Every structure is written in structure tokens, then in C-alpha cells.
């Protein structure tokens, strides 16, 4: 079983639209995982049925029992996250600031503080329109531990793929280079980098590639909206060659992607022209390289 992870560094390069298109082309041969748990969008194109939903508890939050608290202030003194608000009769925890380190209950002389598990999201196992299984999630508002939720989604996808004997897991990763991306990349066999020829697209590609290189994972690159700026597209091409990144395909700037999105479908369902052919070739290339 091979795990293919699609990431982009910069948001808005078309990562999710392209991952959904590849999922459509792969049909029932894969398990799909949406690891962009912070702003998950792939369900809008693949229409999963949310057949199974599970709560996700990631991390903890401190809770002060007002009746037991003597307002001594020991908790506020040790809290490095300014999460404890002093009061005359009792202290209170600001759950948004609390990182759940568990230090305060250890110094509370009256044992007024307990650590409670924090409900920080939900994850789902669904069937999508292609007949394939999709694992996806929704992070709670302002929740931490998106990396842990990503790991949960990926592990579940792996388990299902093994059970169903699928050859590939296709993962929609998250933007940036921080904890959710690191979590998306761990265990990947091949990374697809989606970029666009803008100064920021190239900059973010270089940063995210530096991260991928640390994991020593082989990668390929799709340049989306390639005709937007031929100079930057050429610069990206040079970067790919210099870093041994497989140039997968160059797609045109095309509002057909948006029209497909508005229709709630993938681009390959809406378009049977050259764009669809290019993506078919691209998926074959990814499968062979992975």
C-alpha cells in the first residue's frame, strides 16, 4: 500500500480541487483521506455520506472548582499561557488560552483544579460517489492538536486501505509547514506539491520542499495556472530540476475549475477535453513513480 500526500505550502493553489480530481480518476482503487482538517473542503466535491462519525478528544483543558478554590493564586503564578484569570473569591481558566499542560493542578494546595479531556473535533468514515471510502474530519473552533487529528484520519485511512486491500491512499494535506503538515507527511511514500507561478507560490514551494526533503520522501510537482506568469513558471521548472522533483504536469489558468466546484463536481467530470486528459496522464505518472 502506498500513501500519496498532496500539499502546497501556499493556500489557494488548487490543491483540493486537484486531489478531488485525482480521487475521481482513481475510482474505487483508493482510500481518500482529507487531512486539511482545519478548513476541510474536499467533501464539497466528493459528497461523502458521513456514514460513521466519531468525536475526537485531543488534549486537555484545566477546570477550577469555584467552591474549592481559595483564590491563593498559585495556579496563575505557574501558568505560562496567561490562561488563568484572578478573581476575589475564586480563579477561572480561559479555555481559549489554556494549552492543557496540567501544571496548575499540581501546585493547587486545595486540589481545586481538574484536567478534562477537550472535545476538539469529529472524524468521519464515508462512502463517496466513486464507491471509494473517504476518511475526513472537522476540527473544532479554535482547537489545538490539529496534528493529532490529522494522524487519526491518516491511521484510520491506512487501516481501512489494508482491510479493503487497496493499493493507494490519497491524502489532501494542509497548508503551511507546521504541525498538521508534518503530521500529514509522516509515513508518506510520495508527495505531490501543487504550486502556482506567483512570487508567493514559488517562495512557499521552496519552504515546503525543504520540509519534505527532511523526511527524504520522493516528490513530484503540479504547476497550476502555469500560464499566469511564464517567467515564474520557468523559475519553478529550474527549481524542480535542481532538486530532482518530478515535473508532473503544467495546467492552464482556467475558470472551469470554479465552474465544476460550483456544480459540486470534480473538474474531470465537467471537462472531457485536454484538461481531463492531462490529469489522467498525471495520475498514471503519480502511480508509476510512487
Amino acid at each position, binding site marked *: 500500500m502506498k500513501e500519496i500526500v498532496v500539499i502546497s505550502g501556499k493556500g489557494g*493553489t488548487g490543491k483540493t480541487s486537484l486531489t478531488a480530481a485525482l480521487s475521481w480518476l482513481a475510482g474505487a482503487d483508493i482510500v481518500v483521506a482529507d487531512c486539511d482538517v*482545519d478548513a476541510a473542503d474536499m467533501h464539497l466535491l466528493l459528497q461523502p455520506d458521513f456514514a460513521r462519525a466519531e468525536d475526537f478528544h485531543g488534549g486537555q483543558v484545566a477546570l477550577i472548582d469555584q467552591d474549592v478554590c481559595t483564590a491563593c493564586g498559585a495556579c496563575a503564578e505557574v501558568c505560562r499561557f496567561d490562561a488563568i484569570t484572578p478573581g476575589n473569591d475564586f480563579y477561572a481558566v480561559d479555555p481559549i488560552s489554556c494549552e492543557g499542560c496540567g501544571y496548575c493542578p499540581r501546585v493547587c494546595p486545595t486540589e481545586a483544579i481538574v484536567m478534562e479531556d477537550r472535545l476538539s473535533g469529529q472524524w468521519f468514515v464515508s462512502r463517496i460517489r466513486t464507491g471509494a471510502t473517504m476518511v475526513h474530519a472537522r476540527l473544532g*473552533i479554535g482547537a489545538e492538536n490539529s496534528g493529532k487529528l490529522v494522524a487519526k484520519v491518516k491511521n484510520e485511512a491506512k487501516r481501512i486501505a489494508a482491510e479493503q486491500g487497496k493499493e493507494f491512499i490519497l491524502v489532501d494535506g494542509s497548508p*503551511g509547514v507546521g504541525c498538521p503538515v508534518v503530521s500529514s507527511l509522516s509515513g508518506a511514500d510520495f508527495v505531490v506539491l501543487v504550486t*502556482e507561478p*506567483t*512570487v508567493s507560490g514559488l517562495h512557499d514551494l521552496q519552504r515546503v520542499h*525543504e520540509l519534505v526533503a527532511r523526511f527524504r520522501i520522493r516528490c513530484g510537482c503540479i504547476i497550476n495556472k502555469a500560464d*499566469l506568469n511564464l517567467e515564474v513558471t520557468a523559475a519553478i521548472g529550474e527549481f524542480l530540476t535542481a532538486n530532482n522533483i518530478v515535473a508532473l504536469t503544467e495546467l492552464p489558468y482556467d475558470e472551469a475549475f470554479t465552474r465544476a466546484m*460550483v456544480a459540486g463536481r470534480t473538474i474531470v467530470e465537467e471537462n472531457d477535453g485536454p484538461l481531463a486528459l492531462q490529469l489522467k496522464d498525471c495520475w498514471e505518472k503519480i502511480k508509476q513513480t510512487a
Partner: protein
Amino acid sequence: MKIAIASGKGGTGKTTVAVNLASYLAETRPVVLVDLDVEEPNSGLFLGAEATDGRDTFKMIPAWESTTCSHCGQCQEVCNFHAIIALPDQVMIFPELCHSCYACSELCPTSSLPMQPVKMGRMSWLSAGNLSFVESRLDIGQEQAVPLIKQTLAFVDERHAAVPIRIYDCPPGTSCPVIEATREADFVVLVTEPTPFGLNDLKLAVETMRHLDKKFGVVVNRQGLGDDRVEAYCAAEGIPLLARIPNDRRIAESYARGQRIYEHFPVVRRQLAAIMDAIKEAAS
């Protein structure tokens, strides 16, 4: 006034709005632009000048003193982030998991885990006329954006206390980095695009801002693309629509080259003025 430019979905035009708004305002008054998207900072690319001044930023991590350690194992027990493993003959620390809560260090009975600074990124700054710019970038391999965002905001508070207008270019999403970047803001501008993805992520961002009890409004970027459901949603929810930036391939090309688009497209300049007018009205 602190104005945070945020969005649920990435790539909707946060940086475009932040940089253009800051430069536009700097034509007539002092402004600080702060890039808080520390994982992928891009604002600086559109300023036409490098931020050469700067300093490294650090977070505090425990360091193990093998000579005094009594191997009691308490450090592993107190660490809620699994950042410490106490083996029979040594203590292993995983800095990328550490939240710098100090619990292991301060509760260690033999004081064998003193906290020490470890580099997590770099903060840089430049000033050109009325515009001051501060950006922070997380080192590759560092996973936590929040400590760096906190330090950057504290630095700006200190260094630019006198500047009346601050523009924050925030990270995408709705999780902890966004909360940190927007929590001190007086007003949050949510940039979206009129597409199903834009609408879905806008709803998440709106939920987040309501949770934080923030004043906010929406800028629709690439208006004319997609459908009109974002505008219908804003109208139904009573969310102020601050401005609409038209969908125009020439604007996308201008952005691709690293230009500040309002200098080339008068329609964008008018929208920036509209954003400021609407913020002033909504914030008062």
C-alpha cells in the same frame, strides 16, 4: 487600531489585502504591517525591499543535567505533551513537542531540567517612510507557530507602541495560530472568494470570530467568479460586506509579479478606501 486580515481558506487574498491596505494607508499616515503567517510569510515579497534588520527568536526547552538527575521519572509523568521520556539511565527530550510550560523543570526534585533557549525562527523588520514592516518566519522543522506569533506581537507592542494603525496578515484556517493572531485585534477582515470552498471556510472563520467575540466584516475577492452564495450568506447573517475586488486575470498577473495591485488598478484603490470607511463605521 489593530486590524487583522484573516480567512478560513488559504489563497483567498489575505496577503494582497494586508499589503495593499497597509501601503495605501501609509500614503497619508504611519502604519505597521505585521506578517503573522509565520509558516509561510509572503507580505515581504510585495514590499519591494528586503527586511534586513532582525534577530533570531527562541523558545524555552528543558535541558537534561545527567550528573544531578535521580532518575525518579517524574518529568515524564508531568509532561502532558509526551515531550519527555525518562528511560532507566537517561532522559530524552523532544523539543518539537514541548510547549514550554516549565512543569518538568520547576517540579524536578533535583533541578536537573533547567530551561534553555532553542532557536525557533527569525523576526525581521524594515521601515520605509510611513510604513514599518515586521515579519517572523518559523524555522523549517519547527511545528508550533503560536509561540512565535506571541513573541512577534509583543515585539510590535513594544517597538511600535506609538503607531496608531497596525495591520496583521494572519495565518489561514481556524485553529490555534489564527486565534493567537486575531485575539488582540480591534477588527477582523475576513477575506473570501465567491466559491463553495470560499463560503464553507468563511462560515468556519465567522464561527471562530463570534466565538472570540470579535468585530468583523468580509471582503469578497475575485468577485464575478463562482456564484453569489457568499453575498447571500453575509446578508442573511447581517455581516458587513466591506468591499468587493473584481475577478480580473490582469490583477492575478500583477499579483503573480509581486506588485501591489492598488497602484495599478484604480478600482482596487477605491475598494481599499471603502474597507477603511466601513471599518471605522463598524468599529465605532
